[in-house]
């Protein structure tokens, strides 16, 4: 051993315990080989964690039911009540998916927060970090596994719902760009929103607190904007309304370039930027703070 703090060896006094005499001074060597663990091992570990708790099944199950159920229900209701002979455009039909996605986002937020905050609640985080002391690797592995899981599920559901809605209402298929935004765009946005929740969960370290904050982030700007009657607040109200998360989500279903607020793929870039900042903060918090 070569360490700067080599103290003079202390004489080992003979043991008086009757059970055993002295001890071998050579260390123990395990037959299990030691190699350098990498991100892949951390990913496998995080995947096991995510799939082996019931809260994952519950939150994702509720999300699937909400997105599928609400999507199909709105399509069915419109097809039965609609008295107008004209068939709605493909773009209009796609936008029916919005309500399901907005409610489903609550499940994504919950799961994102729980992915890390539940470890603080149970004390598991200490075990996790002794097994993998690289905070960065733990955070990246958790984020990657969670992001991919949410993205894949959302992608499958949004595509299924859109296809079913179009066939129920007999609308023409919209152009590829609109399709892509209503499926891949929305799914990426949902998964990124989950990542933001994961980052907030890392910073707050408390499930209920972090979930409350995230629900506030999603809903509060919209609700507040509704109550800003004063003229002097008009600009702020418009801004909060345009950039509120529900409105950003709705932008994925909108065809036209809007006068104000994000449109096209812009909401995704905005959210990615915010999430990146939160993730950096989460990493420093994980790295510097005591567990």
């Amino acid at each position: 051993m070569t360490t700067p703090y080599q103290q003079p060896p202390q004489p080992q006094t003979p043991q008086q315990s009757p059970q055993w005499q002295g001890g071998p001074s050579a260390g123990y060597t395990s037959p299990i080989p030691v190699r350098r663990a990498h991100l892949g091992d951390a990913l496998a570990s995080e995947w096991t964690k995510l799939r082996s708790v019931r809260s994952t099944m519950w939150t994702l199950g509720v999300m699937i039911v909400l997105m599928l159920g609400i999507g199909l229900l709105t399509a069915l209701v419109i097809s039965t009540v609609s008295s107008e002979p004209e068939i709605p455009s493909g773009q209009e039909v796609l936008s029916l998916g919005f309500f399901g996605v907005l409610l489903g986002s609550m499940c994504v937020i919950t799961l994102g927060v729980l992915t890390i905050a539940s470890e603080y609640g149970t004390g598991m985080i200490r075990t996790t970090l002794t097994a993998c002391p690289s905070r960065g690797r733990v955070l990246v592995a958790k984020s990657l596994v969670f992001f991919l899981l949410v993205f894949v599920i959302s992608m499958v559901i949004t595509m299924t719902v859109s296809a079913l809605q179009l066939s129920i209402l007999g609308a023409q298929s919209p152009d590829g760009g609109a399709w892509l935004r209503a499926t891949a765009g929305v799914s990426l946005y949902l998964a990124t929103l989950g990542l933001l929740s994961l980052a907030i969960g890392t910073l707050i370290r408390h499930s209920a607190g972090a979930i409350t904050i995230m629900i506030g982030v999603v809903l509060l700007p919209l609700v507040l904007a509704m109550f800003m009657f004063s003229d002097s607040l008009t600009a702020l109200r418009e801004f909060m309304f345009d950039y509120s998360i529900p409105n950003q989500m709705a932008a994925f279903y909108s065809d036209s370039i809007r006068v104000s607020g994000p449109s096209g793929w812009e909401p995704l870039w905005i959210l990615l930027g915010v999430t990146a900042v939160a993730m950096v903060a989460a990493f420093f918090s994980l790295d510097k703070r005591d567990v």
Partner: protein
Amino acid sequence: MIEVHGLTKRFGRTVAVDQLSFQVRPGVVTGFLGPNGAGKSTTMRMMLDLDNPTSGSVRIDGRHYRELAEPLKHIGALLEARAMHGGRTAYNNLLCLAQSNRIPASRVTEVLDMVGLSAVAKKKPKGFSLGMGQRLGIASALLGDPEILMFDEPVNGLDPEGIHWVRNLMKALAREGRTVFVSSHLMSEMALTADHLIVIGQGRLLANTSMADFIQENSRSYARLRSPERARLEEALRDEGFTVVEAEGGLLEVDGASTEELGELAARHGIVLHELSSERASLEEAFMRMTAESVEYHAHAGPRWGMDQPGEDRRGEGV
């Protein structure tokens, strides 16, 4: 081998751990003893790189914890009984740990068997008793078959059979040449398992000695006398130069005297004795005397037992 050098941890203005330096050697069970709030858990958390030291350092086999390639194969730790997700089965709790350090899944079954939890491998720890939770924690420490093992209060919540099992396990692990570091606030427990003793109080190192030396230095032997003619006996003893302490129940205690000489003395003076026995102060008492000044949470009602009142808690265990 664990080396702790000048380890200090401050929380605001309170100093939880103060300039601790010691080494934990392989092949023996090292007891880490201190009253509640002495800084044992904080020290152990810093050893595992969970808390950042204010100053000082810890080296595991000469390296910083974060430099260990697959930490579970170097060091296994039982930190608290419930450092697991209650809703994930015992098997899966260990599996995710094994995967992060590339430990084969077969090893999970092996350690569950080793701690006697095979039957509840597919059950969730939230339904476990404190003792079962403790066993699961020990299984996670053994997972990587590590050279160094750290146990924070391992016998907490265990039944007598479980306590016996943990003691034997720790001794067996040390006999295999591993470094075994066990914290406890019970001297009597340490006396049964530890070969080496590190005592701290209010974050400061109070003793770093072998168990044998500690026993020799700290267990005071004394004789106990009971007589219907107590006043005469006391006077006779004082006259002969013995230090006499009046204990409860009309007993007299004499330090450092053999029962032979006291019996002969009584006979010479014609004093009737109803009791004459030799006793040894318990290690628990020695430990309390050592840490008395540094105990953070005193019960304020009544005198501090075992300190100012000799004879109150002398059970004559002696070990």
